[in-house]
Structures are given as C-alpha cells and as structure tokens.
C-alpha cells in the first residue's frame, strides 16, 4: 500500500510475513538519507524472568522451554547449564554428548524450516513457499523431510519433538538405548545427503550486495576442536574473549523508545563510536569464528559453496545455515556412532550450600542464548536473567536496513519492501510470542 502526500511518501505493509512471530518496523527517509529505522518487538522473556522468581531450581529448563516452540532445546540447555553452574556441578561427558545430540536435532529442524519455507522463496522471486512448491515440489518436499528428520532426532532423545520432556537439571530422565536410536541414524544418513544438496542449491542463489562491519560474537572452545553448540568462551571478531560468567556484566540491555524490547549492547564497546556496542550473533558469527572446526564434509561443502570466514554479507547467512544443517547431521551421526547410554542418565544436583549465581550460554540456532540464575540454599530461585539471540541482533537488523535501504531509495516501493523483508529474514528473527504485529513502513520525505 503506498500512501503519498506532498512531503512524505509512506510505504506500508500490514505485517511482515514469514518470520517467527510479530513485530513492527518503520523506516523514514528525508532527502535521500535514512533518518530512522525502528524494529519494534515485544520481548516476552521479561515475564518469564519474573515468573521464575521463587520457583524451584529444577524448574527453569521446562518453564523457559515454553518461551519458544522453535528452539525449546536451546532454552532447556542454557537453563540446565546455569543451574548446574550455580550448584557447582559439571555433567560427565556422556551426558554432555547426549545433550549435543539433542541440540543437533533442533539445529536441523529450525534451520530447515527457515531456509526452505521462509527464506528461500525470497531469493527465487516467489512470494511464498506455496508458489515455490508449485514449481519445485521435490525441493520443498526435501526441506520438509529434512525438518522431519530433525524432529525425529528431537523425539528420540527428548521424548517429543516440540518442548521435549526428557531433559532435567543434571542430565536426562532416561537415556535412550542404542537400539532405539538406530532408526533415526538411518534417517540421518539420508538427511546428510539431502543437506549437501541443500548447500549446493542455495550456493547458486543471487545475493544482494551488502557488506556490514558488525562485531560478530559466538562461542569458541579454547581446547576442544568442536564447532560450538554447548560450550566455549565468548569470543568476537574484534578480540572479545570472555568466560560465560562475564556476560552478565558485559551485556547491557537498554530500553529504546520505540520498543518494549530490550536491545543488548557490549559494555566495553559503548561510547566508542560507530557500532556503539551493537553486535551480531548467529550462523554468520559462528562460522566466521569457527569455520576451522567444521567436520571435513561440512568444511568442504562450505568451500565449494564459495563461503569464506571473512564473509560479511548477511544475505549469505542462508548458505551458512545450509552448511550448519549438514554439520549437524554429520555431527549427530558421529555422536550416534560412539553412543553408549549414560548410566546413570543424570547426576544429582543439590541446591548450593549458600546462595550462588550460575551462568549458562549455548548456541541456539539464531545465536548465543544466555541464562543467569541466583539460587538460594533452599533451592528457590532468587532471580533470573535471560538474553535471547534476537534481542542481541535487533540493533544490527536496524543497522543493516539503514545501510541496505539508503542506496536503494529510488527503487520501486514494492521491490524495496520485499528486499527489506528479505534482509530482516537474514537473521531468522524469533519473536514468536511477541504481542504486536510486524508492520513494515517506509516513509520517504
């Protein structure tokens, strides 16, 4: 819908489709310059943080999993880690491996959904997955089948695909047997091939030109040569190197006038000009900082796809997602091959002797998800802090739109709007439980 007046030109879309949830967007331009970009998201974890106070220390994994139907495992894992940290417990390796296996299922499922049904249509000029399916039925079927394999892995380890029920502080309620996991291993072998085809498919897309100088932040393990999922230090392309526990002080969340959501910034970078502490998490950041730690098949596919760890074009994140699906399939197969059910499936975790604070950080499909809990000696939670990936990326999404739109202000309204939507989807923003609709408006004076 285009609205014209003598001084302003307003481009309005009722809502941005194909994102996980609802929000609002306003872009305003005056005399060829973008003067305002506002991404409005209503951030529900605030309610959860209040709700968690006074709850038992065993409850956050299941309660916070409800924040998101797409990445519940990420919430469960970050919560478990933070509680265990507060209680002074480190889970043994076999339990950590089973967690990693479960997490692979979520990466496969979440990435396949976003890549095939939400993002790919943009690159191929289709208004939605429906039109894509009409012309390329087999491709959409492949995407749905890939997602299904992720769900099967989630169900096999977690008890069910959405909001798994088998996760507890200290480990799992029950460890699946090798025999129970055998069928999903068979399916993963198919999925690994399908993922390789996916990388080759998306590598052939046309990528709009956009280079951004974001500080990219991801986990990286100081010693284990593993692609980051569950462990590591928090590092960045600009030399940040923090223990997970330092995030509490380093991540500053700010209210911005146009949103009830909080914007996360890096404390040490504030007041230093350009980025003002804004940073980016997610596939592009993980890849930039850990490309050397992909498995050989994934590393080779990335190279063939023309990906380079120095890549700073957010539109290429779809290729990184494809590589990460391939990696997750390959890694799940490696873990399944070596799998011995942890016995016992969970280690005991008692409340701390005195009030203690614990931190957890894992790589959700969309980037690092940080949890902090203060646990009382009677097992009650005194307070909680949750910083999800999308709230960390909000500032960068706005910055991307500013840079993307400015040189293209002469574009036709419809094309520019669609390109803006595509640019937002580069980050697979997860605002599922948001209370306001995403309403994209570009005003041009």
């Amino acid at each position, binding site marked *: 819908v285009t609205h014209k007046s003598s001084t302003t030109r307003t481009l309005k879309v009722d809502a941005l489709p194909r994102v996980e949830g609802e929000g609002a967007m306003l872009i305003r331009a005056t005399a060829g310059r973008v003067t305002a970009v506002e991404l409005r998201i209503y951030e529900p974890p605030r*309610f959860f943080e209040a709700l968690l106070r006074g709850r038992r220390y065993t409850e956050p994994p299941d309660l916070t999993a409800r924040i998101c*139907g797409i990445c519940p495992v990420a919430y469960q894992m970050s919560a478990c880690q933070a509680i265990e940290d507060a209680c002074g417990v480190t889970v043994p390796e076999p339990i950590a491996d089973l967690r990693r296996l479960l997490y692979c299922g979520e990466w496969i499922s979440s990435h396949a959904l976003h890549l095939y049904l939400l993002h790919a249509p943009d690159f191929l000029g289709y208004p939605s997955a429906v039109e894509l399916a009409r012309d390329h039925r087999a491709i959409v079927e492949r995407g749905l089948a890939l997602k299904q394999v992720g769900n099967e892995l989630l169900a096999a380890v977690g008890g069910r695909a*959405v909001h798994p029920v088998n996760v507890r502080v200290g480990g799992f309620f029950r460890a699946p047997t090798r025999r129970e996991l055998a069928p999903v291993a068979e399916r993963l072998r198919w999925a690994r091939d399908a993922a390789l085809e996916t990388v080759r498919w998306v590598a052939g897309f046309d990528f709009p030109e956009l280079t951004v100088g974001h500080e990219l932040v991801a986990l990286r393990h100081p010693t284990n040569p593993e692609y980051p999922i569950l462990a590591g230090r928090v590092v960045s392309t600009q030399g940040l190197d923090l223990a997970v526990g330092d995030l509490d002080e380093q991540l500053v969340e700010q209210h911005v006038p146009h949103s009830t959501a909080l914007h996360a910034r890096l404390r040490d970078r504030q007041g230093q000009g350009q980025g003002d502490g804004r940073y980016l998490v997610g596939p592009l950041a993980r890849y930039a900082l850990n490309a050397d730690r992909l498995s050989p098949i994934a590393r080779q596919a990335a190279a063939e796809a023309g990906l380079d760890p120095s890549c700073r074009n957010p539109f290429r994140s779809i290729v990184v997602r494809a590589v990460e699906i391939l990696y997750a399939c390959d890694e799940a197969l490696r873990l399944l091959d070596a799998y011995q059910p942890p016995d016992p499936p969970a280690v005991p975790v008692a409340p701390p002797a005195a009030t203690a604070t614990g931190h957890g950080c894992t790589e959700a499909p969309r980037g690092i998800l940080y949890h902090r809990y203060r646990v009382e000696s009677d097992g009650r939670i005194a307070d909680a802090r949750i910083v999800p990936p999308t709230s960390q990326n909000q500032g960068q999404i706005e910055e991307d739109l500013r840079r993307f739109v400015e040189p293209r202000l002469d574009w036709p309204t419809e094309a520019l709007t669609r390109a803006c939507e595509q640019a937002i989807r580069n980050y697979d923003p997860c605002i599922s*439980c948001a209370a306001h609709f995403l309403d994209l408006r570009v005003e041009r004076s």
Partner: protein
Amino acid sequence: VTAPSEQRQAAGPLRLVALGDPFRRDDGVGVAVARRVRAATRAAVEVVEPGGDPAALLDALAQPTPAAGAGIVMVVDAVRTGTGAPPGSVHRVELEPGHGRLPDLRRRDSSHALGLGEAIELAVALGRLPAGTRLVLFGVEGARFDPGTELSAPVAAAVEPVAAAVLRIAGQAGPQAQATATRAPRRAPGGRSG
C-alpha cells in the same frame, strides 16, 4: 450397498485441527474447543494441536494416507477480522481445496510463520490434500491477545456452540466415521493425537 473399499473411501479421516496459543488469552479458543470435543468421547474425531510449529500444521492438515480418500478436516482458530464483528462471533467458512480459488486466507498479520491459508495452499501444492476434502474453518472473533490464559467472556461463551457444531458434523459423518475407527485403531473414538 457399497463395497467395503468404497465405503472406506467415502469415510476418509475426520479431524479437528486446533490452532492458537493458549497463553495468549483469546488465541487459546481453538485449544479450548479441542478439549471440549475430546471430552465428548463418542465423537469419532481425531483432535490435533500442532502448536507453534508451522510444519506440524502442514502435517495436521495433510492426509496421512491420501489413498484413503477425501475426508473432513475442521479447523478452529481465533481470528481478528476487523469487520466490526463483536468478540465471540463465529465465522464459518467451507472450502474445497483444488476446486476453485480459496478465499484470501493469507492473513499477513498472522502470528504463525506459516499462516493457515498458506498451509492449506501448500498442502494442496504438495498433493497432500486430495481433491474433494471438505475443509470447515471455524474462526472465533477474539478481543484480547496479550499474554494470559483466560478467555474473554464472549469468547469463552463461543466454545460450547463451536464444539457442538464440530460434533454435529462428526455425527452426520458418524456411521462412516465409526467404520473408519474400527478399521483404524489410531483414529478410535476420542483418540488422542498430536
């Protein structure tokens, strides 16, 4: 007298797909109706709650065995039509996918990454909804969608009539549905799923 195979084909699946988020007040009306229908144990209706997973919605609409023939898929969700209809109003729409154009169901303000209209069209494009499937959509006009679990009073009052309408459709398809149920234990009367 129809042959058993034809009878089975005529029956097809009889399913209720309940959409919406029960933690977003009136958005929970679909799940409330689903509970009510489940409680009526004699109804041979398979009740599915795909939750927030768009691909699960696609699976919920799709026929697990298209060869079994066209069936009846009922969908209940909260809607905000902007037509001035008072909260609690029930909009009933009947569709036959593959037979002419669908009404414009692609709500661009849907809170689902893949809206209902898109999911239906995608199911058709992928051949998962056989022609002739009867789709009955019940949209209940909602008032409040902020976080919370209570339905507003007029929306809560719509739960019973919508459940009754679902059961009436199930009753009309009753004998055939029962025949399906005896052949397919997974769709037994009152059976759970999802």
